[in-house]
C-alpha cells in the first residue's frame, strides 16, 4: 500500500504528520513497536528537514509504503540545498552529562531503530527514506 501526504514545513505540523502515520499504520495493522519506531524516525527526519531547509517549498511530501515485510517512509523536499542526514557525525552516548551537547541525537536514534537510511539529491530535490522491517 502506498500513500502520501503533503505536510506543512513547520514543527507545528508534527500533529498532521503523526495523524497521517497513525491512520495508515493502523489500517495495515502494524504492530505497536514498529509503529513507534516509524513515528520516531519520521519526526527526527522531518524536523531535520524543517530546520535545515528553511527556504524550501511550503510543504514536504511524505510517502509511506507498507508491505507485509517492511515499511518504507520517504520524505521528498523540493527547492532545497543538499543535506544528507547520514553525514551527521555520530554522537558519543557515553559522554557524561556535563559534556553533552545538543545535536546529532535524533539522527543517532534513527540509525539505531531503522534497517536502512537512504538519501539522494537531484535538481534541488532531496529525498530521504528509511526502511523498517516489521516485527
Amino acid at each position, binding site marked *: 500500500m502506498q500513500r502520501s501526504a503533503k505536510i506543512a514545513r513547520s*514543527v*507545528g505540523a*508534527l*500533529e498532521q504528520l*503523526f495523524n497521517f502515520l497513525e491512520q495508515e499504520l493502523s489500517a495495515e495493522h502494524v504492530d*505497536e*513497536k514498529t509503529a*513507534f519506531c516509524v*513515528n*520516531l524516525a519520521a*519526526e*527526527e527526519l522531518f*524536523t531535520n528537514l524543517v530546520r535545515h531547509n528553511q527556504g524550501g517549498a511550503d510543504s514536504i511530501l511524505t510517502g509511506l509504503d507498507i508491505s507485509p515485510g517492511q515499511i518504507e517512509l520517504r520524505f521528498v523536499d523540493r527547492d532545497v540545498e543538499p543535506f544528507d542526514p547520514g553525514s551527521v557525525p555520530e554522537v558519543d*552516548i*557515553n*559522554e*557524561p*552529562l*556535563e559534556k*553533552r551537547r*545538543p545535536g546529532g*541525537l*535524533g539522527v*543517532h*536514534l534513527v540509525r*539505531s*531503530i531503522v534497517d536502512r537510511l537512504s538519501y539522494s539529491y537531484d535538481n534541488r530535490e532531496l529525498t530521504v527514506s528509511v526502511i523498517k522491517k516489521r516485527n
Partner: protein
Amino acid sequence: MLEITFGQDNSVIIEGRFDASQVDLALARFNEVTTSVTLYCEKLQYISSAGLGVLVRVQKRLMDSGQRMKLTQLSPHIREVLELAGFDAIFEIE
C-alpha cells in the same frame, strides 16, 4: 498533546506525547522544578530527541544545585529510546 503535572512528595507526572512541538511548554513547566523529583512516565506514550533534550537540560540544571531527577514507570519503548541515547547513565531509572 503533553501534560506535566505536579503531585505530592516531589513527584512529577508526565502524560502524552513528548515531541518537538511540545518543547516550549515542557521547558516552562519543568522550570518550576527546583528540587530533586521523581518523574512518573507511566502515561508517557512517546518521546523523541527533542523531548530527551529537555530532560537533559532539566537534569543539568538540577545537578548544578545538587539535585536530580529520577525516572520511573517507563514503558518498554520509552526505556529503549532512553537506553539508545545513553540516558541510563545520566538518569537513575527505576
